[in-house]
């Protein structure tokens, strides 16, 4: 019985003029978005690989110089993206692509693409994820809002019920028919997307590609299911098709457009993060007065005394290592505590904002889906943070290696003026710093961070199904 109803529903939808138009528009947009996303992603990756290669070479071929000066010359980290970024670009446009890693200073990732595009970019990016998150629900609504309300208006529902069909089979049949119609539009595009990825010869950043695609599919199917059952529920409850349409479109605008912005604004107030100017001023001032109130120069004085006592010497030039280098490394460690505190505070505020927004997913299913999609595509805040953390670890190791080498190799220069006589190192020494490599977080880490979003999405699906069940149970058969 359910199959018969589903087939009737499917045929009716597909033969409707509305279907042709909306389906054509969806397919066209999805294909355009996927193609453009692919093109943008390939050119980004090519640029990134070339830039990282070039800067690695530049580090080695920077010319013979003092190792500490080489650490000042520093190195750059350019962020690679996983292959799924072409489908969901996530926060990529709004995050820095480049971290300058140098001695004495921790830097933010800079050069975000959004800073260099026109304000119209803020209308959003047309990518596969955006279409499935924003337009697919509307497709479901357009095709389904008349499911019960329309039949009630034309009076056919009474006839159908008089034939002894249970309300439940009617619901499942309609859901199946509507679902197949929606899938018929979306599925081909998803398959084409998968073929794109299979054809790629880009380096695979991030493991578990197949699992990621499978989980993405599950999440988007659940999301479509939420709207499908909500549409049927509202269609069953509403007195007329136009009320159903108004309610559904209102909910759609609420979850897809209003809530993401609202959640962002509220989270900013709950977990405030400092503007650039205040951050820099606070950090510099803190650095100058010392982490716990003892200025760096006093700390260094203390450190000098400690070293001299430890090695039982009365003059730094008798120390068994190059004092200038050890002193600089000590300064590095002192500063590091300040950096860790200030950068850590910003990271914590952002993470708090992100979690807060995810929790508001209880009001709008688009929020958890958006997070899951970015997370699995490798374009969310967590991955960006990992990139910056990797760059920071690299920076610390690079500086430590250069200062360390200097401290061992230049012992004979202790007490000599460093302005006129200093050690010069070459490429072989710079090579002890291995090239920067970004290790994206493991799939397990991503999933652990997002399990709550999956739970919220599941909650929405169950709630939508329950609402639909309640809807058909209490459905009026006649117009009043």
């Amino acid at each position, binding site marked *: 019985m359910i199959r018969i109803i589903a087939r009737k529903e499917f045929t009716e939808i597909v033969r409707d003029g509305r279907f042709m138009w909306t389906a054509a528009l969806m397919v066209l947009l999805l294909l355009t978005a996927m193609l453009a996303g692919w093109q943008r992603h390939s050119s980004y990756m090519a640029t990134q690989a070339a830039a990282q290669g070039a800067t690695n070479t530049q580090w080695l071929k920077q010319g013979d110089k003092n190792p500490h000066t080489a650490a000042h010359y520093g190195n*750059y980290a350019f962020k690679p993206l996983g292959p799924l970024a072409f489908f969901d670009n996530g926060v990529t446009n709004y995050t820095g692509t480049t971290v300058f890693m140098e001695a004495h200073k921790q830097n*933010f990732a800079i050069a975000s693409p959004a800073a260099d595009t026109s304000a119209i970019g803020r209308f*959003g990016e047309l990518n596969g994820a955006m279409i499935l998150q924003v337009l697919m629900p509307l497709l479901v609504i357009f095709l389904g809002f008349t499911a019960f309300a329309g039949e009630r208006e034309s009076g056919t529902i009474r006839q159908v019920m008089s034939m002894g069909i249970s309300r439940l089979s009617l619901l499942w049949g309609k859901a199946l028919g509507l679902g197949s119609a929606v899938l018929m539009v979306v599925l081909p595009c998803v398959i084409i997307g998968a073929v794109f990825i299979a054809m790629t010869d880009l380096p695979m950043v991030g493991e578990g590609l197949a699992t990621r695609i499978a989980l993405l599919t599950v999440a988007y199917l659940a999301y479509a299911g939420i709207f499908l059952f909500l549409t049927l529920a509202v269609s069953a409850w509403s007195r007329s098709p136009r009320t159903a349409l108004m309610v559904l479109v209102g909910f759609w605008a609420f979850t897809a457009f209003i809530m993401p912005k609202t959640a*962002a604004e509220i989270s900013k107030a709950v977990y405030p993060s400092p503007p650039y100017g205040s951050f820099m001023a606070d950090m510099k001032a803190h650095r100058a007065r010392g982490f716990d109130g003892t200025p760096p120069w006093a700390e260094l004085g203390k450190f000098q005394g400690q070293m001299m006592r430890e090695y039982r010497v009365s003059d730094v030039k008798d120390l068994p290592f190059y004092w200038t280098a050890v002193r600089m490394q000590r300064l590095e460690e002192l500063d590091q505590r300040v950096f860790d505190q200030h950068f850590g505070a910003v990271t914590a505020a952002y993470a708090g904002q992100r979690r807060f927004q995810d929790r508001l997913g209880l009001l709008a299913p688009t929020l958890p889906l958006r997070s899951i999609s970015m997370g699995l595509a490798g374009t969310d805040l967590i991955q960006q943070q990992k990139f910056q953390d990797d760059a920071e670890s690299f920076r610390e190791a690079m500086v430590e290696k250069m200062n360390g080498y200097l401290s061992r190799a230049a012992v004979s220069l202790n007490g000599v003026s460093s302005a006129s006589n200093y050690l010069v190192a070459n490429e072989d020494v710079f090579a002890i710093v291995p090239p920067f490599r970004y290790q994206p977080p493991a799939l397990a880490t991503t999933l652990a961070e997002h399990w709550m979003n999956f739970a919220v999405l599941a909650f929405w699906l169950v709630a939508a199904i329950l609402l639909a069940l309640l809807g058909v149970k209490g459905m009026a058969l006649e117009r009043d």
Partner: protein
Amino acid sequence: MYRLIAMHETRALARTWALWAILALLVFAIAFAAWSGGRSVSRQLKGAGDAASYEVGLRDRMRQETAEYEAKVKATGGPYEFATVRHAPGQGPPQGTNAGAVGAETAAYIALPPTGLAALSIGQSDIQLDYLPITMGKSLAMTANAELENPVNLLAGSFDVAFVVIFLLPIFILAMTYDLLSSERERGTLAMVLAHPVSLRKLMASKLMARAAIILLVVTGLGLVAVLAVGNYLETPETWLRFALWIIVTLVYSMFWFALAVLVNIYGQSSSTNGTILAGAWLILVVIIPTLISLVATTIYPVPSRMDLTVAAREAQTAAEKNMDKSLNAFYAEHLEYVPAGDQRAMDFMTLGQASANTIEKALSPLYAEFQARRGQQQGLVQRSQYLSPAVMMQLALNEISGTSSERYEDFLQQAAKFRTEWNDYFAERFLRQDPLRPADYDSFPAFRYQPEPFSVVLKRLAPSLSGLLILLLGVALVPLPGIRRYQVAAR
């Protein structure tokens, strides 16, 4: 007659829950938007203030040290000398006497002041830094100009009044008008009403006026409250001129959506068909076309990646360092006045820095120019294709009116570049001549004064968007006129 029907409509509307729900949502949305817009502007101002006062504090300390030094020199009768750059505190003249140290180790923060209406349309000002550190030796091309903000929030975008007007207001307008005629026809009352001495055109106009009056009064009233609550410079006429423009574009934009609803009602059929068509139109005009324009603009004119720019800058830096002697010679050849007496050529790393910065800037300038040119082309394409969507025209118009447009920011960047040259030249000259700074010199440092753009420039840049909106409104409003005659009054 118009008044009678309009009055009746207003009374009828006032008894529907939908109207009150819509008005409540509108009030809530604008209040929330004003709150968050105000927070955004004060956050920027706080950042600019903190950054500037920190750097001023650094220079004040340097000045105080030179004053103490000057007093000491006066008391002991020694020469007032120039300090070489060093990092550890010690004996001798303080760092504040060295123009190189002052010019390069402290920054002059220059700020783009918000306009009176900045809080109403945030534009790109949550991404672009409205205050820039200007230092000696660092070119603007390599200065980070990104505000510190959570990318998740940037992706979502600001919930500002512009968002409410561009995205939500049309939804509210369409919700009130999508069944303007069709509902009466479906209930069968339309034929009854038209049996009285009233034309369809009059009836429709009156129904429309009732709705438009309610919505527009509320929007302009709330807009005024928002300006009073979170606007700046309320005492200047410019703020109120800007607000007048804000009202005008908002009215034109709203009228467009009313006209569109009428158009669909005249040619449409059932209420639910009208609803579907109008929802689809909203989707296409407000969501799909703007994102498509953006996609096309970034695909046709891709801005060269900053990553390439970074690598090229580094290439130039390495080359300059390797040819230090050469770049130093080139620098001295251009600046004969700075060639030091005797054989002490490379004074210290600051001179070298100054020399290589020169080389790097020269090497980078063609790349940066290409970068800027592409950005300009992209901007141009957006400007030309804005006519495809009222939402894009409206966004550009509101950004312009609120002073958050890309053009105003570009102008600020140009002023910044000019000031950087001024700042650099002042300190470089004093430094290279080894002319020690005295405390009194601290008053004559170059100071940045933002030159506001004349209001005529704002109007000129606003003209394309505003006239585009007006033409679109006229077009949509005139199309239905012939259709009115053929309107099927009774339901089939």
